[in-house]
Every structure is written in structure tokens, then in C-alpha cells.
């Protein structure tokens, strides 16, 4: 796919990984949110998860990442349950962007590149891919909501991990930002990566599977 070369051709290769959720039930407090949920995600696939507010999209993503312990069912990333071993296969974008107000995107992304063991030189192309290279040295606390979100998306891409878990990635993005996100996801999939995103926006990612968690229940 052409978007691969557009974004950053020198990125080290990705190790594709499968995700398999079977018979998952989640409860929060008194409430059962998700009952007997099944999902198979092969390399290169994308899932767009929608559903009314409060149905449990965020909870489901957090369970897959291993932050919430499910009531029943299994989650497998490759062969592992979501433990530290499997965590290295996931890239996470939550409601919060994980930015420090005093740290500029450049500083933050250099740090996350080092954490993921990825080369720094990927930072600038990825910032460009999300059209925020001009704010690279502005403290994150002064960025606009959309600029913060884009910085967090760069962090996700920078980790170079096969499975992306994105919770409302497009909420604060403008039209251009959504298009650039779609390109980024297409690039990731072309490299063998996969994505699960919870969203209320209508994102047109080509041949993404759509799950409505509301009707599933």
C-alpha cells in the first residue's frame, strides 16, 4: 500500500500478532456490562466498536489490556493472557493522553521511543503524518485538545507494536485529523498490524469490521 512509504519507510518491521477474546463477561460494581463476548482479530484487521454511552466499550478495551479482571471468559494475545509478557504486543490510547503539561511532544516522544526501544528518527515523520510538527517544542499543557490527541497518536505509532487499542481516538480531531488518522491506521495495517477502536464518530477505515456493542448485549 502506498501509505506505508508516505509515513515512515524505515520503521523496523512489525511482528504480527493475533488477539482472541472468547466468552468474555465483564462486570463493574453491580452491573454486568458485557456478556459472552467473542472477538478474533487477525494481523491486518481493524475493528470499529460503537455503542451507546455506558455500554462498556472502554471497559472492554481495558480488559483486553489487562487492567480489568473479567468475570468469565478468556483473552489471548498470541498465546498469552494479558500479562506483562503480552503487554509488549499492545499499544494503548485511553481517554487520557498520557502527556505531562510541562513536557513538549519532542521530549515526551523521545522518552517513549527509548521505552519501546525504537529509533528516535521515526518521531519527525510521524509528527508530520499527523500535521503537528509545528508544535513539537510547545509544552503539552498549552496544546489544544486536538493537538494533544494527535501527539498521543504519534506515541502509539512510535511504539511499533502489532495490536493497537484506541479509545475514542478521533473525539477531539478535526476533519483533516480524522483523515490522517485513517492513513496512519491503513499504514499500520499494511505492515501487518491490527486495531480495535471504540468510537462514536463515523470513521471510514476501508473494510474495517464494525461491532455494535449495544445490540450485542
Amino acid at each position, binding site marked *: 500500500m502506498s501509505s506505508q512509504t508516505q509515513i515512515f519507510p524505515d520503521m523496523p518491521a512489525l511482528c504480527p500478532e493475533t488477539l482472541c477474546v472468547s466468552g468474555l463477561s465483564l462486570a463493574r460494581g453491580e452491573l454486568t456490562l458485557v456478556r459472552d463476548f467473542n472477538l478474533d482479530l487477525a494481523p491486518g484487521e481493524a475493528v470499529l466498536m460503537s455503542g451507546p454511552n455506558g455500554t462498556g466499550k472502554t471497559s472492554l478495551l481495558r480488559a483486553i489490556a489487562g*487492567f480489568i479482571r473479567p468475570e468469565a471468559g478468556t483473552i489471548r494475545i498470541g498465546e498469552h493472557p494479558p500479562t506483562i509478557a503480552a503487554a509488549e504486543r499492545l499499544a494503548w490510547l485511553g481517554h487520557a493522553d498520557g502527556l505531562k503539561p510541562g513536557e513538549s511532544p519532542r521530549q515526551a516522544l523521545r522518552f517513549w521511543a*527509548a*521505552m519501546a526501544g525504537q529509533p528516535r528518527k521515526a518521531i519527525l515523520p510521524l509528527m508530520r503524518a499527523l500535521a503537528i510538527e509545528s508544535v513539537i517544542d510547545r509544552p503539552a499543557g498549552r496544546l489544544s485538545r486536538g493537538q494533544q490527541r494527535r501527539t498521543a497518536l504519534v506515541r502509539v505509532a512510535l511504539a511499533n507494536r502489532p495490536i493497537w487499542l484506541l479509545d475514542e481516538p478521533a473525539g477531539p480531531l478535526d476533519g483533516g485529523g480524522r483523515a490522517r488518522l485513517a492513513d496512519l491506521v491503513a499504514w499500520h495495517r499494511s505492515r501487518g498490524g491490527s486495531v480495535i477502536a471504540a468510537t462514536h464518530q463515523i470513521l471510514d477505515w476501508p473494510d474495517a469490521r464494525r461491532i455494535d456493542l449495544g445490540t450485542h448485549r
Partner: protein
Amino acid sequence: MNALGAVFAREARLAWAGGGGAAGPAAFFLAAITLAPLAIGPAPDLLMAIGPGIMGFAALLSVLQSADRLFGDDHADGTAELYLLSGATPAWLVLAKVMGQAVATLWPLPVIGLLGALMYGVPVETALVGALALLAAIPALSLIAGFAGALAAGIRRSGLLIALIATPMMVPVLIFAAGAGRSAFEGDERAVANLLLTLAVSLGTTALTPFGIAGAIRSRLG
């Protein structure tokens, strides 16, 4: 740079960012030892007698002051999740984090402790022993404060909770560290023993608390 080095360096950088840095705990320490005589009164022999103890006490409080932000900020801004998914061993990661902050911000404490003790009229050798004891106590104090901070991350008024959780665990360090200064003051040869005990507690804490902290972070995400 590997992951742990990066965490250490970032934490040190964040501690300095925004102008605070090493000035923070040091300034608090200075404020505490300035206020104490105002409350207690200026009688020189009284101040000389409590000098070594007050230094240990004030150092403990200074370390506690920054504890709620160390892990509380990560919890609030979503960094905690990212750390857990980073693939680095959590116990090592938190150790690097606590040490990064401690190295960046706590080194002035022994120095000010030395000056402060002199200002309280404590003899020079005693003041030196007290400063050494503070140095030996810093790893233990900051790790225990970090542990309490991780347990209370994101809780309203976590500062108070942290103080409550941490102080009982800090009792041994305080006794040995302040004890070193006091024995030196009283010309007692137990000073060296107390110094070594402080160091031993610090080493033990370094070996154990990181696991506690990592567990606490994970449990607070559920």
C-alpha cells in the same frame, strides 16, 4: 539508552522542569527548620538538644511532601497505564522512577541538614554525623513515601493518606537516623552502629518496596 535509564532521566528532568527541581524539598526543609524555633522558643540549650532530632524529622516531612505527585500524576494523566504496557519489569521501572526523583531533588537535604544543625548550635562533628545519617536514610524515606503515594494515587486529599500510611513505616529509619545524630551529640559510640543500621534499612527497603509499589499501581487501575 535503555528503558530504565530513560525512566530515570525523565523523572529527573520532570522534577527540574517548571523551575522547582531541587529547590522544592530543600526549600521546604529550610522552611520547617526555620519555623520550629519560632514555635519552640529561642533558648539555645533547648535548641541544641533537639537539633539532630529536628533535622531527621524535617527531612522525613520534606520527602513526604512530594510523594503524592510522584505516582498520583501518572495515575491522573494516563501514564500509569502506559508504564504497565511498556514491557519493562514494573519493579525495576518504579525503582528507576523513585530514584530519578530522589537523585534530582533530595541531594540538598544532607547539606541543609548540616547547616541547619550548625544553626541550632550543634557541634560540628555531631552535625556531620547527622548529615551522613540523612544521606543514608534518603533511599528508604523516598521509597516508602513512593509506596504510600502509589497506594493512594488519585485519591482526593491523598497527601494526608500518604502521610498516614508512610509514617509508621518510616519509624525505624527515623529512629536510627536521628539516633545516629543524637548518639554523636551525647558522645556515645553507638553513632556508627546507628549509621550502619540506617544504611541497612535503606538497602532492605530498596530490595522490597519496588514490588509493593508495582503491585499498588496495578491494583489502582482495576
